[in-house]
């Protein structure tokens, strides 16, 4: 749940109502393990390696690429921002551990795909929930060259930095 600290870090800058809304949603996530759908979501993570060498054109001296694919299904209610953010940040942490454990040598081309049902729609204007909006704002502030900023979920993972142990 490391990722949650990053969300909490921006909350003090938000209004009390925004903070309350987020913590209320987060509380529902933590306390409702028995509620079907809210906490029983899964993600599958796979790492694929070509069976024969596959040099990448234009990458001098490249090693064979590694393809990491993650698939998930977030909670359906997009107004439950604490729940959805918690889920994507847990996935972000899991992805980081997963990739670090691969111990990839420097220079390895790494393809990472995150796909699935995010239960969020593409239009920025539809992100009218204060927590989602503030998180989106936070991400954009951090990485304002994001091309796909409309998905808070992909943005969260897009900021992933992974280091070897």
């Amino acid at each position, binding site marked *: 749940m490391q990722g949650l600290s990053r969300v909490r870090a921006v909350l003090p800058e938000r209004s009390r109502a925004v903070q309350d809304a987020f913590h209320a949603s987060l509380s529902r996530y933590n306390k409702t393990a028995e509620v079907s759908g809210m906490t029983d979501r899964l993600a599958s993570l796979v790492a694929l390696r070509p069976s024969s060498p*596959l040099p*990448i*054109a*234009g*990458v*001098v001296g*490249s090693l064979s*690429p590694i393809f990491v694919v993650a698939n998930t299904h977030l909670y359906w209610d997009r107004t439950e921002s604490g729940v959805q953010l918690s889920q994507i940040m847990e996935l972000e942490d899991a992805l980081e551990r997963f*990739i*670090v454990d*691969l*111990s*990839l*040598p*420097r*220079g*390895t*081309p*790494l*393809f*990472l*795909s*995150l*796909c*699935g*049902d*995010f*239960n*969020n*729609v*593409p239009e920025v204007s539809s992100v009218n929930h204060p927590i989602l909006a503030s998180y989106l704002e936070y991400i954009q502030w951090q*990485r*304002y*060259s*994001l*091309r*796909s900023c409309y*998905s808070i979920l*992909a*943005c969260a*993972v*897009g*900021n*992933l*930095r*992974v*280091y*070897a*142990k």
Partner: protein
Amino acid sequence: MQHSKAVPYILPMRSAFVEATGSEPAFTAITTKKCETIDYIWYSASIVATNDDDAGAAEQGSSSGTASTTMSTSGSSASQRQGWCRAIAAQALPSREELRVELERDSDTTIDDPNLGLPGGSHPSDHLPIVVTFEL
């Protein structure tokens, strides 16, 4: 957390469907209650780097005054760090009208638009699979 050697440095993800077709699908899930785009394929293609590479990139970014370069490029390796893979095509998704025709043929009844929804016909889910072809 100790960072002795960096492994990958992952770029911001792009929507593969947008890259291949210019926009997200009109819808990826359709029931009689909702019709919306909620399924995505995000991806990045990077090169595993080290902490040293990372520091160099950050330095270059600050000197050029653009934060974006801190995450994407590092000097001569810039062209190697991104774009070694791209989404070039996406499998076409049926339109509402195409779905309606299929479902009417399948059920041998007329379907009013508000009653148009999946699963049905050749679609076992209320979501449509999205399929993108990548080129290395």
